[in-house]
């Protein structure tokens, strides 16, 4: 669930303030230093490796899955985890490991696409607000304040009831509509601090258009915190999807997702606890690895934190 949303916002806020104070220098050397620092971050490396492996597993699912996807076998229901079916089989005799691999495709796509769309919307909103200021800024920031003031889950619930369907697009839409505020705040902050700096003034003086200044100068400069936020969003979106699925409003079967596998498994908790354990573990592992990764990226991209 978006449980970390607010603390993270706070952290990123702290971040922004720090950066504003430090006046981060941007350039090749900065990215190189960041990369080196990232490689030294042990937890981030573990997180990155796990996240990469999970992504590969999901991408290659059709080729590496031990059984055909969604093959029903009514003679092989409720097989316990073992050699034939590593993670056992479910109520229709489908191989759980296979389903987890295919469900991972959906869950990870939800995570990645949400991260991209949230960052894009957020970056645009933040850039516009920060760059233009005035009433545009006020409107956008009031919207942001508004969305930060409420627990989002109820809004997601209403959206889930409102938007028909049960696929990936719907979930991404629901998560993006209210999820962009963190990034918007970050980008706006960056823009505000960068706006007064020389190269923007120079660009203005040289007659560059506003759109060009936003696109070519301001956004690239605000990239670092956005990357961190996007990484954390991947895990968060997966958590939120699973929460919505638990309430029956997420990805709808027959499309498998880790969230809806868990929801189903609940009923069979006592008979087949493996059905609940494995999808839960995969959600947990994925979110954890993206959180490690995001944390490592933050440390790497912020020169002030490590002393």
């Amino acid at each position, binding site marked *: 669930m978006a449980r970390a949303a607010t603390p993270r916002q706070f952290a990123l806020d702290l971040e922004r303030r720090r950066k504003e104070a430090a006046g981060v220098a941007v350039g090749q050397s900065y990215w190189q230093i960041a990369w080196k620092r990232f490689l030294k971050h042990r937890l981030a490396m573990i997180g990155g490796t796990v996240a990469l492996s999970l992504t590969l597993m999901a991408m290659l699912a059709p080729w590496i899955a031990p059984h055909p996807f969604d093959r029903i076998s009514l003679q092989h*229901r409720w097989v316990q985890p073992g050699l034939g079916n590593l993670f056992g089989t479910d109520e229709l005799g489908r191989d759980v490991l296979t389903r987890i691999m295919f469900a991972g495709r959906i869950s990870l796509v939800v995570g990645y696409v949400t991260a991209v769309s949230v960052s894009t919307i957020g970056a645009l909103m933040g850039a516009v607000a920060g760059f233009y200021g005035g009433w545009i800024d006020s409107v956008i920031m009031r919207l942001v304040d508004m969305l930060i003031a409420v627990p989002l889950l109820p809004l997601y619930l209403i959206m889930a009831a409102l938007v028909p369907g049960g696929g990936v697009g719907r979930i991404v839409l629901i998560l993006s509509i209210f999820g962009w505020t963190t990034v918007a705040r970050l980008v706006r902050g960056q823009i505000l601090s960068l706006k007064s700096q020389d190269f923007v003034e120079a660009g203005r003086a040289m007659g560059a258009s506003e759109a060009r200044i936003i696109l070519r100068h301001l956004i690239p400069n605000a990239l670092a915190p956005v990357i961190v936020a996007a990484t954390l969003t991947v895990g968060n979106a997966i958590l939120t999807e699973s929460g919505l699925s638990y309430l029956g409003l997420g990805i709808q*079967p027959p499309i498998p997702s880790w969230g809806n596998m868990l929801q189903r498994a609940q*009923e069979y908790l006592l008979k087949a606890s493996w059905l609940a354990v494995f999808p839960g573990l995969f959600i947990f592992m994925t979110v954890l690895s993206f959180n490690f990764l995001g944390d490592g990226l933050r440390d790497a991209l912020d020169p002030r934190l490590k002393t």
Partner: protein
Amino acid sequence: MARGWLRWVALLAAFGLAFPSGAPAAPVPRKDTLVFAMAQEPDILGPMTVMAASGVIHNIVFGDITPFNEKWQRTLVMVEKLPSLKDGDWQVLPNNKMRVTWKLKRGFTWHDGKPVTALDYRFMYGMLRNPQVPSIARFIINKVDNILVPNPNDPYTMVVQWNELWPFAGTQPFGYGYVLPRHLLERAYLSNPAQLKAHPYWRLPVGAGPYRMTEWVAGSHMSFEAHEKWPLGAPAIKKIQLRFILDSTVLQANVISGSVDATDINNFSCLQMEQIAQRNPRVEAHHREAMVWERIDFNHDDVWLKDKRVRQAIGYALDRKAIAEVSCAGGRQPVAHSWMAPGHPAANPNVKKYDYDPAKARALLAEAGFRPGPDGILRDGTGKRVEMVISTTAGNSIREQVEQIVKEQLRQVGIDVRIENRPASVFFGTYTTRRQFPHMAMYASLFTPESVPSNRFHSRDIPSAANSWSGDNRVGWRNAENDQIWDQIIAELDVEKRTALLKKQQEIFAEDLPSLPLYFRLDLTTYPKAMRNVKPVGLGSYYIPWNIWEWKWGDQ
């Protein structure tokens, strides 16, 4: 950080662990309070709600005039006898009008001490008949012209005058199982009938049933105390607490741990019942045959499905025995061959049956002009690929499993199935009732031995914009012979003749197959094995507390 470590321990422990089975160690003491639980909380009580959960409480607080017993026979609780044509207290008048005389038992009192009389019945009838009252089920009550209490000195005799023939005029006075107190509701009703639904009475009703309701803590529980003046004998269990535990897994855990004694409307699956029986041997996990008809509706406006052969082919293509088994293992759940449950006295066991036979299905489809395409999926006469949509209520795991089987097995005969589920509010809100489902919709209907579902099958009752979407023939079944037989059934007062007509109707149904019957879902309840006289009925409106005043602990 102890919690964090605990979670790791928990995770490791949960990892593929077989939990030790057997009973929890502590013995259950004989409690004064019976703890009852449901997975649903009613909105309000009384006739202005449609929720099943309200029905359970009606059984407890209002009692029932003539409840169905466990043998699906009407029993006499609040009336002296059931009027009958033979005895003459049920008369058919010219112009198909009827006059039914009811004798009420004396001695029933409202929980505030006032006696229950025919005037209460007459008041309730008048109130629910009033179009300003936001009541809902008026199907039967609209057939009643008036209720008279002919002798002011005998407020225990009433005459129900019917406008039209109705076969079950002798089992309930006007289609409701309980009565409401005139002295508590009349003033509010007369002053503002349209706002009656907001009256506080519906949150804490004073009934005439075996128990008095003492509190309703919204979102948590209700409490009841025995009505000592209940004329059928003071209840042995003095207090009941009814808890609302919406998550069926949590409810199950409560039953297993013994903190809940009895459940109904529990949303348990047969599997969960199995677990309960295994882990708490003190609990009776009861499976009762019921009249809950699970089926797949075909939309007859579809070019493919309007052809009877296609519908029949789908019938042959599906292994409905396996489907019934997935829904409830152990061969307990009967496969349905028509809409009428085998326990119904008019059930016809000799209708056409569609046993699993994919070859026959393929032959029928070929006969109907379908040819396989290069991908193994059929093409119709115009070359269109046969892809059908099946929908059900999203979140119902059994139905979603059945959909998977349907998809797989129809694929075997060359029909590609796409699953598109809808939330229950949409599915029942407009999707089925306004016939928006393109091909197949899977859901259940509840019947009783007195159901005359002509509005579900008669072509007059096909919902459309023209008739403001009234009627319940959601498949759009048009069959003249079937229409005619329903017109007869509805007006046939003779039980034997009606039974024969119903049997004939089932033959027409099974041949024409407007919907594909899947199975009759069992009614699942739990209660303590040590509790005597629990007799689950398994019919809508009659839940396990229907005879709760008779319940007692084994050694009491």
